[in-house]
């Protein structure tokens, strides 16, 4: 069967499955809608968390980023997994014991303050919308390439599907669709990786193939890769260019951000017991690790395959580069999307792909008769194009498309749910209209989810940057605002209302301001970014991706300073803290 019909078939079948599950698991009350009735088994919750967690950024962009960044890409691998250790050791069991519906609700009770709740809701909404914009772009990319529909139409279809199961099923519907989505996405991710690993090294396990010798030679994949990328003027694959402090800060910001993301935290409200919350975090990371240990192998193999395709002969020889007229068919299809572009600068009809930004390599390039890099490849396409580059059968390519959509939709749904819960439960029921009935609250939650989907779709048309980068900002904001507030709330009894609010506001404003100043986020219409985004201008040499760490430290320092200069929290609050530290109910 032809690729397009196969893709329609697989993506369509997966949609039918998700909607079917949503109808089966629809929510009957607010407990179902917000926390799936606290009845999800730890393994199912682990899978749902993994799907919720692994977004379009993880599925589509991450391996591509690593392919081009090499060692520097490790920040994403460690950052987006190590945060689960923080979550499991510092937050999940205690928040489960607390046993309410939302993250702002915890902040409100622990800090006995409606104002703290509103600050937490604002943090949550900024984080979640920043993050969801990236998901919508991911859906758009997959649809425009594989279903050959307009990006707008692709977005509409994606929004429609999410709408059906998020609005109807709430947390319960989302949880069980996410279990299905996890299975689709992990299968779609690992199958091509295994195929390519066998082709390249003869070893079927990508995690091992990554460190194996290339089939028929005695040179390891990574050594060969180091060798060919440096011969084209690029930086060595296995060593980095980022400064040590920046790598350190980005990794820490991503870890703390992971632990502070509301849509992840809330997943641990859905399991029956504290013990389940602890184990469930382990299952979640186990399921995530399957993809996250495969991704660096995919990245290295994709980079190798790409360069081997473009540079089949000896570097610098006249016929060493691929002739444009002999380009493979995947090249053609991706060129049409504008994500691969070729410009024959030296008019030799061949594709020269090298690092023309490297001054040390310029003389060598000139001596080869090269007049600049002629090919640009969007990093986001590496995973999607990888099976085509490796010449795998059509059904594998169609499967990857279905997997990409599953990853984007599952994360978008999780985010939209926490946004709607923050509005209906925290703002409407918690503060502005405390007298509404449960049915009215459920309706408000559904309306809020619907509105959030429309806003997310709108943001998806004009997202501020590539998928993984946009997502990195959400992490910085979470690391600097919610994570410290919850952590201190559990571990330091003395932190009071004034300290927590001052800390969150400081962390959020500082981090947001720094990112807006250097990268531009929501104020592009007013001329942002204003600062040159280069290492010399950064504070302590920390990039906007890593600045959440400083925001987090500021938050903690301010929270302590303000708390200790004001009255301690009332005794019943101290009792709440004692209560959540012990698993058994009193």
């Amino acid at each position, binding site marked *: 069967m032809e690729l397009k019909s196969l893709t329609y078939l697989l993506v369509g079948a997966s949609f039918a499955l998700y909607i079917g599950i949503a109808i089966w698991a629809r929510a009957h009350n607010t407990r179902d809608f917000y926390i799936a009735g606290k009845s999800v088994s730890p393994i199912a919750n682990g899978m749902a968390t993994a799907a919720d967690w692994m977004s379009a950024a993880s599925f589509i962009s991450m391996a591509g980023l690593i392919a081009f960044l090499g060692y520097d890409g490790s920040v994403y691998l460690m950052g987006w997994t190590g945060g689960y250790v923080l979550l499991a050791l510092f937050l999940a069991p205690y928040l489960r014991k607390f046993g309410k519906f939302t993250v702002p609700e915890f902040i409100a009770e622990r800090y006995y303050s409606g104002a703290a709740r509103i600050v937490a809701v604002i943090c949550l909404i900024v984080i979640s919308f920043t993050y969801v914009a990236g998901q919508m772009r991911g859906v758009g990319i997959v649809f425009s390439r594989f279903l050959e529909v307009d990006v707008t139409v692709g977005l509409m279809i994606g929004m429609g599907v999410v709408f059906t199961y998020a609005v109807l099923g709430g947390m319960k519907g989302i949880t069980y669709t996410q279990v299905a989505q996890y299975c689709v996405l992990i299968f779609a991710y690992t199958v091509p990786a295994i195929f390519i690993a066998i082709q390249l090294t003869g070893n079927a396990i990508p995690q091992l193939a990554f460190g194996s010798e290339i089939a028929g030679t005695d040179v*390891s994949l990574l050594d060969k890769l180091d060798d060919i990328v440096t011969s084209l003027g690029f930086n060595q694959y296995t060593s980095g260019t980022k400064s040590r402090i920046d790598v350190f800060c980005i990794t820490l910001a991503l870890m703390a951000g992971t632990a502070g993301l509301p849509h992840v935290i809330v997943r641990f409200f859905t399991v029956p017991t504290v013990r389940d919350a602890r184990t469930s975090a382990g299952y979640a990371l186990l399921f995530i690790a399957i993809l996250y240990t495969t991704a660096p192998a995919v990245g290295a193999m994709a980079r190798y395959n790409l360069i081997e395709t473009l540079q089949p002969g000896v570097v610098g020889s006249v016929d060493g580069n691929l002739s444009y007229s002999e380009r493979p068919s995947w090249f053609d299809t991706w060129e049409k999307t504008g994500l691969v572009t070729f410009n024959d600068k030296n008019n030799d009809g061949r594709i020269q792909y090298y690092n023309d930004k490297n001054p040390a390599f310029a003389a060598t390039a000139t001596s080869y008769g090269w007049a600049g890099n002629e090919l640009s490849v969007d990093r986001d396409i590496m995973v999607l194009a990888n099976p085509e580059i490796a010449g795998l059968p059509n059904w594998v390519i169609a499967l990857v498309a279905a997997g990409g959509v599953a990853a984007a939709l599952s994360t978008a749904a999780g985010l939209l749910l926490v946004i709607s819960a923050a509005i209906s439960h925290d703002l409407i029921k918690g503060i502005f209209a405390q007298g509404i009935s449960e049915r009215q609250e459920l309706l408000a939650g559904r309306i809020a989810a619907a509105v959030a989907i429309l806003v997310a779709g709108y943001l998806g048309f004009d997202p501020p940057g590539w998928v993984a980068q946009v997502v990195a900002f959400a992490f910085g904001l979470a690391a600097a605002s919610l994570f410290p507030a919850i952590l201190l709330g559990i571990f330091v009894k003395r932190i009071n209302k004034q300290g927590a609010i001052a800390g969150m506001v400081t962390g959020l404003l500082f981090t947001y301001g720094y990112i807006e100043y250097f990268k531009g986020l929501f104020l592009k219409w007013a001329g942002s970014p204003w600062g040159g985004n280069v290492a010399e201008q950064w504070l302590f040499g920390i990039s906007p991706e890593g600045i959440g760490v400083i925001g987090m430290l500021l938050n903690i320092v301010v929270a302590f300073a303000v708390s200790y200069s004001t009255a301690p929290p009332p005794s019943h609050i101290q009792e709440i803290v004692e209560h959540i530290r012990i698993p058994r109910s009193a």
Partner: protein
Amino acid sequence: MTPENRAAYWRANLRLVAACMAAWFLCSYGFGILLVDQLNNIRIGGFQLGFWFAQQGSIYVFVFLIFFYAWRMNKMDRKYDVHED
């Protein structure tokens, strides 16, 4: 339960957390970032060891740590008689 017992449980928890965090830090920030150049002189198969920790090893350690913590805590809950059901 007595306040002393409660405090002892919490101290034991904090000690376990501290031990796990030390391992967490060592394998990611230590082996994967701060000591990466030194460890890259050691090779395991086709991998340089520092690079392997940054892109593979640290993740395996994270998974192990969470299950280890959950197992120890669930045991500790029983010992201090604070377990559920």
